[in-house]
């Protein structure tokens, strides 16, 4: 039996969370949600999801900070993270990758695009970036 994958969606926009919940739910993913960065980290630590979809622009802790914290945490550091951004600037993409995200989705996203990205992210448990970073630290 195939395990049902658990995806954590962190976004302050309830409706965006709702869209993701329904869309992913329809594809047999278990979706859990968090309304801000702090809550997101908390749930990630507690629930240990297979994937985290993380919005960048949030009040309080922003997406980068959340990403960084998750990657610093032993429990959550191996969880792949997809960043969700409304900005779409190349610089931000770089910034996201540098703090450990493995993919990017731009708002507004296609269903197809989202699912492709999710599938890819689940396949690579550890982002190539992390390996690189580890090597650099050695």
């Amino acid at each position, binding site marked *: 039996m195939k395990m049902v994958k658990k995806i954590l969606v962190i976004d302050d926009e309830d409706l965006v969370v*709702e*869209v993701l919940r329904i869309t992913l739910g329809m594809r047999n993913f278990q979706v859990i949600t968090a309304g801000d960065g702090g809550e997101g980290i908390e749930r990630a630590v507690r629930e240990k999801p297979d994937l985290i979809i993380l919005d960048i622009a949030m009040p309080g802790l922003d997406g980068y900070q959340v990403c960084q914290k998750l990657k610093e945490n032993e429990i959550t550091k191996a969880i792949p993270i997809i960043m969700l951004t409304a900005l779409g600037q190349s610089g931000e993409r770089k910034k996201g990758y540098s703090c450990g995200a493995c993919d990017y989705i731009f708002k507004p*996203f296609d269903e*197809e695009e989202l699912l492709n990205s999710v599938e890819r992210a689940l396949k690579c448990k550890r982002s190539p970036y992390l390996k690189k970073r580890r090597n650099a630290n050695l």
Partner: protein
Amino acid sequence: MVEKTDQPDVFLLSIAYKYTGLLAGLVWPLILILKEIPPGRFPHTFSVIFFTVIYNIISTKMMLKGKLLKLNKILAGVLNIFFVSLLVYYTGGYKSNLWVMFLLPLITISLLYTPRQVILAASFVAIVFCFLYFSQAEKIWFEDLAWLLLKVGMFFVISLVFRKIVDLEIRHRVAFQEKSRELSKTQYYTDNIVKSMLDSLIVVNPDGKMEKINKAALDILGYKEKELTKKPVTEIFSQKDATLFQGSQWEELLNKGFIKDLELTYLTRKGEKIPVSLTGSVMRDEEGKTEAVVAVLRDMRAMKALISGLEKAEREVRQYSESLERKVDERTKEIIKHAHEFSVIYEISKSISYTLDIHQILETIMGSLHRLIDYDIFASLLLEGSEGELIIESSHSLDERDIQMVKSNLASAGASLFGRTVRPEDIRVTLKRERSFRLSQEFKGQLKSFLNIPLSIDNVPTGIIHISSFSRSAFSEDDARILHTIADQVASAHKKLKDLIFKEKRKIESMVESMAEGVIMTDENDNLIALNPAARKMLGISSEGVISDREIWIHFGKLKLGRLYQRLYEQPGDDVFIEDLDLDEPKPISLKVISSLVRNHLGERLGVVTVLRDITKEKEVDRMKSDFISFVSHELRTPLTIVKGFATIILGEASGKLTREQKEQLSYISESIDRLSRIISNLLDISKIEAGKLRLQKRNIDIVSFINKVLRSFRLYAKGKGIKFETCFDSKLSRVLADPDRLTQVLTNLVDNAIKFSGKNGQIRIEAKEGKDAVEVSVADSGIGISAENFNRIFNKFQKVESGIRSKLKGTGLGLPISKEIVQLHGGKIWVESEIGKGSKFTFTIPKQWRGVTRYENGKENFGH
């Protein structure tokens, strides 16, 4: 041959006639004798006689001129007379006489012309004979024919033989004639030379009689030619010269053969005496016998006058040149002296032009003056109020007495020159040794000469320049003049420089003070030279009162400005430093700090100029702009995400079944959101492009899978409009180096446009071709098309083609300008081919993987970076 000579015809005819005459004289009587005609008298005999005699007279006369042929001529004459006698004796009225006479001119002609012409003549003769024969009453065929042949043959042979003879003679004659012509030419020249000679020419025979006297001689003597010809030559010379032409002296001259430049005196008809110079030579014939003496006499009157004139002129020139030389010497010495003075004065004034320090100026003067004036002591007294500073320079040690003397001398000079009393005890004395001065021979004694020159600067008596010597009367007026000149130079140079510096300083000061930018200037020792009000305000330094440099530097240190200076000094070769500086105190301010090292013409560091520009507002605007962009992106995109998300969810029938209509309407919502999203992206991109902030993240891309991916995203949209995609890729396509997101944008824009303008059930063809350096991608639609004049406009920002249909269609008009920018940033090109009503084809190129953007920089288009 005959015709090769250019002899006159008359001459040739004379020769021809001579021989034809001989021939006639030979043939004619011979025939008569052979025919046994009895002697008798016939009328035509006279003509023969006349012809022969007249001819002989003429030809003999002609021939006698040439001695060479004399013998030949006589022989011919004798033979002629003999033949003519025979002819006279035998002449009778026989018919053959007629044709003999007739032949004469023909033979004459034949002698003058070529053998061919001779043959012609012979043929003619033969015809004549034939005619004569047939006109005869009785015809004896055989005999007559033999005669005829004999006659013609004889004519022919005789003609040729005589021709040869004539040729020979002509050649001789021609040679002779040429020689005689040459002689006559020489004669002619000689005559003319003699005639045109300006000198007298007298030919004297050995007896001392004059043979020939030329015109020049006759003119000078005043005689006519016949009066002197054959007269003794002594007649035309003075008494004392007559001996030359008599006795032993004359004999000696004849033996010697020539005489040269003998001075004689003419005695003219009027008794006038004219000095002449005689040059003569003795003419001898072939046997050496004296024929004559040719004497050339030159009138020496003009020459004598000329010589005496020349002598006089030479004397004068010599005198003049001597005096001139003297003058030049004097002047040269003077000029050299002046030049030297000027060079030294120039040197002094040049070096004092750079300094305002009076001590330095005096030092310069001391360094150079001794090259102009000899002195033992140079002293300068500088007046400062009632005190004075005396600097004494000398090449040797001075005793107290000398110093006191200079001091009191200068003190009293000061009193008399400026009317100011300086007590000797108020004068400070500095002694310097200067070895380059000369050493006066009498230096042990007292100072005997001195010279004081006042030095005024800005019309203020500043000091006295003093030189003195141990020699008596050591200084001349000139020395005083030089010293005065130098003092004047010092004064004027000093004033000019001061004025100039003052003016420049004021100019710069007022400029700096009024500048809106902050200006900080420091000198080479980091002392603050300028700190304008703007800078004070920016850095929060009180504009009231003076603050010390130390305080300023401490302040700078607090503001991290000191660090900038540090860097400027530490980085050699980098004289300008630009940095942004954010200050929190006294109020938050952003500054652009531009510091540059100031160097003089020698490259020495003179200080630092720092310009501060307040860029707070610019930064604020910049930040506001980014904030706005973020706001727009975020605030617009988030609701879009929600709308799109739910539309998709509903479309996926997660919340219940939908009718076909509902589905269609929902898909419109989804599409519109996509379009809206693209518009937002485009707006952001344009602002990024304008700010030069668009950066590419290039990767290697497989163009085929890339295109397919983009087309997949249009699948639904296209399906909705009934549009079909057709792709055509080259079998082998290189990978390209491009930013995948940006390239997606370009292709999306093109495909989106193609769908938009294709109308229902259109077809879109996407091609990818391998080019030389790049891969070429084209998107062709079957839409409304674009007119040629709009080809460029559609790539310009906010331009939309104003064609009827198109203007109704939606779009920001930014897609193509952005695509163009992106393609050019990649180093590619984009263009359109289109025809109204038939569709458009947009093509762009993307360089292959191994190519960089740089290669395109020299191309026609400037792609920008």
